């Protein structure tokens, strides 16, 4: 075999090899979609909490159940004037009804560089979870909105409804890049300003926020969103494969520090990461924020079915 033949034979293999690292398209491949269908069947609804997706809201509208009265003003529909009350009190009052509306679910995906740290499995897992939960929501005719947030609001998928929109979700998630810094408070302030319609806000993040994860969650709380925290946990972050003298730098802020890695230090590092996770959980519990840790090594379907259901995230 000549060199030319060898190169010809080798090139296709080389091309295959170059594609060997997981292609983005495979993030939501056929297997994933099959699992989604199963998930949609077994998990009828997102949030088994206080409300149902086809619930009544406090917004007064054209529902069937009476809610309240208000004074008649010019232009109101005469059909809603409560003539009985007028007879009793001599005052024109308009009858108000509770309006039935569909649920708005916001998936807020952390797009900071720390999410793609290392192999990027944490970010992939986060996107898979986001897609799965979004599918469940879409299947139940909820309004699903996805936003990417870093040190500011990065991008958003406008509210969509219906299972048929899931490919739009896939495309959106596929195009997301984890290449920003982390400032959840700043990003979520923009988010709440842009989304007046309150609903469930599912924050999918590793919560590596130099300014403090609490601020970001509080923004959601203070603006009447119902925050759910999916805490993405990558075990490798707590067990770096390092030894000896190194100069560490933060992948987002670039802060440097010289350090000598010893076994003792690594042990303390594991403790510090565990403590940080406990700290997040304690904050969420204290503030009645639903908290679910999501290990990047756990298969997403198992996470959705077993972990989330056990924690009451799904019904």
């Amino acid at each position, binding site marked *: 075999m000549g060199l030319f033949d060898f190169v010809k034979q080798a090139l296709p293999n080389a091309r295959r090899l170059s594609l060997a690292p997981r292609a983005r398209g495979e993030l939501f491949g056929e297997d994933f979609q099959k699992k989604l269908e199963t998930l949609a069947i077994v998990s009828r609804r997102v949030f088994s909490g206080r409300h149902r997706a086809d619930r009544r809201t406090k917004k007064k509208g054209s529902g069937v159940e009476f809610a309240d009265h208000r004074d008649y003003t010019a232009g109101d529909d005469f059909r809603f004037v409560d003539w009985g009350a007028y007879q009793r009190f001599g005052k024109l009052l308009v009858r108000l009804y509770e309006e039935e509306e569909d649920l708005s679910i916001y998936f807020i995906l952390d797009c900071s560089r720390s999410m793609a740290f290392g192999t990027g499995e944490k970010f992939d897992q986060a996107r898979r979870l986001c897609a799965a939960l979004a599918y469940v929501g879409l299947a139940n005719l909820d309004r699903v909105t996805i936003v990417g947030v870093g040190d500011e609001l990065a991008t958003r998928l406008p509210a969509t409804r219906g299972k048929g929109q899931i490919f739009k979700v896939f495309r959106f998630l596929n195009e997301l890049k984890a290449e920003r810094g982390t400032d959840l408070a700043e990003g979520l302030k923009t988010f709440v300003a842009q989304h007046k319609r309150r609903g469930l806000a599912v924050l999918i993040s590793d919560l*590596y926020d130099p300014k403090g994860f609490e601020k970001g969650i509080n923004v959601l709380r203070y603006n009447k969103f119902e925050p759910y925290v999916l805490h993405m946990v990558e075990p490798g972050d707590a067990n770096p494969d390092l030894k000896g003298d190194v100069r560490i730098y933060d992948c987002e802020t670039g802060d440097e*520090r010289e350090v000598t890695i010893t076994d003792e230090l690594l042990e303390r590092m594991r403790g510090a990461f565990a403590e940080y996770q406990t700290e997040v959980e304690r904050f969420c519990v204290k503030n009645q924020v639903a908290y679910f840790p999501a290990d990047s090594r756990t298969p997403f379907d198992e996470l959705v079915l077993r972990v989330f259901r056990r924690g009451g995230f799904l019904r």
Partner: protein
Amino acid sequence: MILSGLSLTTLLGIFGAMAAATLAFYILRLRRRAVSVPFSPIWQRVLKDKEATHWFSQLKRWLSLLLQLLIVLLLVFALGDPRLSDKWFEGRNIVVLVDTSASMAASDVQPSRIEVGKKQLTDLVNSLSGTDRMLIAEMGAAPRAVSTMTSDTAELTRASQSIRTKDTRADFERGIRFALDSLRGLPKAEIVVISDGAAHQGDELSARFLGDPALEHVTLRQLPVGSGGKNVAVTAFSVRRYPLDKSRYEVLLEVTNFQPEAAVVEITLIGDGETVDVTRLSLEPNERMPRSYHDLSGASRTLEARVALVGSEPVQPGVEPGAPVVVDQLSKDDSGYALMPERRRVRVLLVTAGNRYIEAALLLDEYLDVTVITPSDALPRAEFDVSILDGVAPELRASHGARLYLNPPPGVPLAHKSPQPILDFGFDSWDRKSPFLRWAAMGNVQVAKGFAFKPETADHVEGESDQGPILVSGKRDGQRFLATGFDPRDSDFVLRVGWPLFLLNAINTFASEDTSYISSYRTGEVWNVPVPSGLNQVSLRTPSGLEETVPVKDGNAVYFGEYAGFYELRGPGGEVLSAFAANLIDAEESQLKPAEELVVGHKTAEKVTVSSTGVRLEVWLYLLLAACAISAIEWFTYHRRVTV
């Protein structure tokens, strides 16, 4: 502390350069690789505790650098080869006497005794401490220092490698006296004798040093070599020409078997490079067998005898069947060398009115070229070795050579004691060692009439009657003479066998071809070899082919010979003046059994052991070890994160 290597200035320069390089490498080593982490605030929390020890960490870094600089300092200091001053640590002063006698060439220990001895000497040199000093000397027939008294092991090692065996015996007394003189006044003096002990003088040696105060403060040690082995040797070898037939010669050879079992030896005589005779002999244990070879011919100048011990071992690979298998373990004593006197015609001038007794005697030697003239003839201009003057005393020139006066007239060359002749006398006394009278019995010679001489102060009376000297030798005008105070025809001397011997002795003595010719010299002695007068130095060509300049004193070239073989003396123009042979011929040296012990005076030499060789105290070595140790500590602490 003394720096015997590089100077202090050079060391400082090297240290500066190496310290700078170390610093550069240290900085490079501290440059750490950058590693990305997902969330540094958690690291900050963990490392907050370490902040408290920041200054200590800095200090430890400096400690690491200081350790490395210390390593460099030690290495550079080692380059200076520092030595402890004698004031700090007093070392030993050792004289090593290495036996270089012929027996040390024996191969009873492999590869040879001398090589084993040199190996032991090298071990001894390597075990010297830093402050020890040593002098190495060869101990042959005369001691010879091959190194200075030094602690430089390189010089001592070179000196030990230059040691070679000689064809002589070892003179232990001179060697030990040399060592004692070298160590006089020095502290911690030691003499180490590396020897097989063969042929040393035993009790005699011990007796010579009894009560010697110089021996009191000296430690005597011995490194014995050798185990004993098979040997046969030539213990005597001489050759001479027959006086009346110089084309033929006879040889006396003595062979000795130095082993406790019988041996078969093969003796080969080689004349002028050609084999003259081959003989096989059987020798009983320790037998000494003299053997004469008569009427040999075929060699005109050199004669060599070789003895080979024929073993009973099977034929070795590469050796032809029937060829002798040599199992002799000392080859130096297997050869004897002899040089026969040069055979040339002696030119003789006979001035006589007619004397058949003289003419007949001269006919006995066919190598005489005789010219006969009468007293009235003019003296020939040709050169002569000897002139015989029968009853006359003409005025001779220097070219006429030495003179033999037979009954000369008064005054030339000697005055008569009395003008009156003396009657009926004989030789009442004569010089029995005189070369003129060798083999001649003069006691019965009767003379009817003659004269007694009146010799001068420098003259030598060879024979004397009761009435005065009648045979006198001496020198006149630079020429030797011999004079008889009577006409031989007036005596019965001419009828005796001694007459022709007397004439031929005189001619041979005058022509330097006398019967006292030394066929070979003995090695290990000072040789006085006659050379023509007028030379201050001559060139000597040794058996190995080397040319050496030799001084001439009193007409003799003086040379201390240590090797057996054939020598040639050459003049300033390269012409060969004379040649001679030298032989070991030493029965004691051929005895290969080593001596049990060495006793000098009342001291018995201690055996050198490992514990007595000492441990070498080279400071640079310890500096190097210290540098290695610190390097190991630095490495350990660095990798254990103690100093980082």
